């Protein structure tokens, strides 16, 4: 072992395994100093003060900080430093130990070799500190990098269409609802997520669901898939971003228990489900394919988004419809063509609708949510045939905008249409709408709806029903009628799914819990 600052040469005397080793910094008597080992494990001479000396039994001696080898070749435990043992690992002679484990101090000359004070304990402590610090830093770095990687908010796409389908199957098989939702095409997953919470909140307010119902916790339904397999060789590649996977076998077990669904008691009673036992249904996919699908495997579409593959609900529906109708996916889809602003998108889609320009309407749909309609576009137009233009012309179009989940709700402030020289104009003012046509003005306000329903419905409409219809109508007029526009890659599109979902929420907001009671009475 080399001690910087030590002024001596090699430690005398040279080690003799047959002589009791006095070892240490000084010979006999030994005063102070450092752990020593006697060859063959012989006891050492009494030592005065200082540090523990020999290990009489020749057992491993612990000397923290510096590697050593034991005289008998037994490994010594030294925390912190790499230990070389007698099992064929190289010994570290450079640390100043001879073959018997004696320490040599090349820089020391006699007892004076101690020069530099009593550094060993201090240095041992420093070494331990350094080791602990390095180990802590290394472990912390590894754990932190792993945690950062695991917590990274990345979409759960797959590298191939087959892997995407398998991920879905795996999530289905383990009943992993989060895995299923997270594994779906991002835009589709976002659509369902955006409206799930709002719908559940409204259902809770209407006392359809219990107050503690949580949209993120699915209760009452258990799903299990076993041995589900895809025929990877039969997968159909439609284009660079759409592949149809073929599901050929497996078992799906669906267990439902109405009592575990967080429905309110009054609804469970109305459904007569309070005594209903849990029901389990098992579907053998191979059997179903033979029986109901003419031997055709179940088709599940995977789409490519941002370089990763996801199973897609919309594409799966579209593909199955096409397959049923014996049609093929068109090779030239309609390219999306968004507008410069949310209001422009709404205006353009109204104009395209009036001109019966289906291509333009489809191009104005958001490519992330409804890219399937753009891929299907030529087939849809072909099936629809040539639609006659309405001949109407948009003369005025003004909207109010409001941010909603996932987009912008544009409600009509003013719209003017000219048909065959006649102008019709609708203007919104607060919760009233004024309609001007043929030189006449008519105004309808939210609080007049109930009265209007009663007048128009006469005795056929009961007071409570008129009340419900009136309240819903009033809500629609107050919130405004409009469309939801979304932004994709800097362009604005009109989202029909979000528009209908928003309208659905608006209708629900118009209802009250007592209306549900009325509807339940009518259902009985």
């Amino acid at each position, binding site marked *: 072992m080399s001690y910087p600052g030590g002024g001596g040469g090699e430690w005398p005397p040279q080690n003799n395994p047959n002589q009791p080793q006095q070892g240490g910094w000084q010979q006999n008597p030994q005063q102070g100093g450092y752990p020593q080992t006697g060859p063959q494990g012989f006891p050492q001479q009494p030592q005065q003060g200082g540090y523990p000396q020999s290990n009489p039994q020749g057992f491993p001696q612990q000397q923290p900080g510096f590697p050593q080898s034991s005289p008998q070749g037994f490994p010594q435990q030294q925390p912190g430093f790499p230990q070389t043992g007698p099992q064929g690992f190289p010994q570290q002679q450079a640390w100043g130990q001879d073959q018997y484990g004696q320490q040599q101090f090349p820089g020391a000359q006699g007892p004076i070799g101690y020069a530099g004070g009593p550094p060993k304990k201090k240095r041992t402590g420093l070494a331990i500190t350094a080791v602990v610090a390095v180990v802590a*830093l290394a472990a912390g770095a590894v754990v*932190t990098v792993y945690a950062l990687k*695991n*917590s990274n*908010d990345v979409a759960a796409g797959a590298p191939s269409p087959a892997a995407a389908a398998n991920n879905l199957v795996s999530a289905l098989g383990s*009943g992993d609802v989060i*895995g299923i939702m997270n594994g779906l095409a991002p835009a589709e997953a976002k659509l369902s997520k955006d409206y799930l919470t709002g719908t559940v909140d409204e259902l809770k307010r209407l006392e359809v669901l219990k107050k503690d119902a949580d949209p993120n*916790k699915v*209760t009452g*339904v258990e799903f299990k898939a076993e041995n589900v397999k895809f025929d990877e060789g039969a997968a159909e590649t439609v284009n660079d971003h759409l592949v149809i996977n073929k599901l050929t076998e497996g078992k799906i077990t669906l267990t439902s228990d109405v009592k575990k669904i967080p429905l309110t008691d009054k609804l469970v009673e109305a459904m007569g489900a309070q005594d209903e036992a849990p029901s389990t249904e098992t579907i053998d996919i191979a059997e179903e394919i033979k029986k109901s699908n003419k031997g055709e495997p179940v088709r599940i579409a995977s789409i490519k988004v941002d370089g990763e593959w996801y199973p897609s609900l919309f594409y799966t529906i579209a593909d199955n419809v096409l397959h049923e109708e014996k049609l093929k996916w068109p090779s030239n889809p309609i390219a999306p063509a968004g507008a410069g602003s949310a209001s422009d998108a709404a205006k353009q889609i109204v104009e395209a609708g009036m001109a019966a320009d289906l291509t333009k309407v489809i191009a104005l749909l958001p490519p992330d949510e409804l890219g399937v309609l753009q891929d299907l576009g030529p087939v849809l137009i072909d099936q629809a045939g040539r639609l006659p233009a309405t001949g109407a012309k948009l003369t005025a179009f003004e909207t109010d905008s409001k941010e909603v989940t996932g987009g912008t709700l544009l409600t009509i402030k003013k719209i003017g249409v000219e048909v065959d020289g006649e102008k019709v104009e609708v203007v919104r003012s607060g919760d009233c709408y004024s309609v001007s046509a043929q030189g006449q003005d008519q105004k309808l306000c939210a609080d007049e709806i109930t009265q209007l329903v009663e007048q128009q419905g006469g005795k056929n409409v009961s007071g409570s029903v008129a009340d419900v219809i009136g309240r819903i109508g009033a809500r629609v007029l107050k919130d405004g009628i409009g469309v939801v526009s979304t932004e994709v890659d800097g362009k604005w599109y009109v989202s029909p799914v979000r528009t209908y979902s928003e309208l659905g929420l608006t209708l629900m907001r118009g209802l009250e819990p007592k209306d549900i009671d009325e509807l339940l009475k009518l259902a009985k």
Partner: protein
Amino acid sequence: MITTVVGSFLPWLRSGTVGRDSYEVLALRGWAGLGNGYGEVIRVAWVSMTPVAVCCVLLFTFGLRRFAAWTGILFGTITGTVAALVTVQGSNEGAMVGISLTGPAVALCGAVLAIAGAITVLTASARAATSKPGGTP
């Protein structure tokens, strides 16, 4: 602290038969509607608990025991609060998606131990200081 860090890698969320550790749960923040800045702040704060634990170990190793103890209290308080909040939410038995108690419970135990250890160190330091002539409590 090691117990808490280990606990953070045990299941915190159960979906069907799949368990997700606390970091995988954070990866779902976009799906859960926390993909905005708040979600990122929560993620960074939670992930940084491991470096905080490492700092604590280093401070203790280098003899700065009081600093280490206060760092340990910070670590234990943050992780313990999060773990306790999740633990009291319950296991949601019967739900297809629910909280798994394994991770939060282990992390909570670790946090309590970390705080207890830190308090012990602080108390010992205070006693040592007062027992020395001229020492400061």
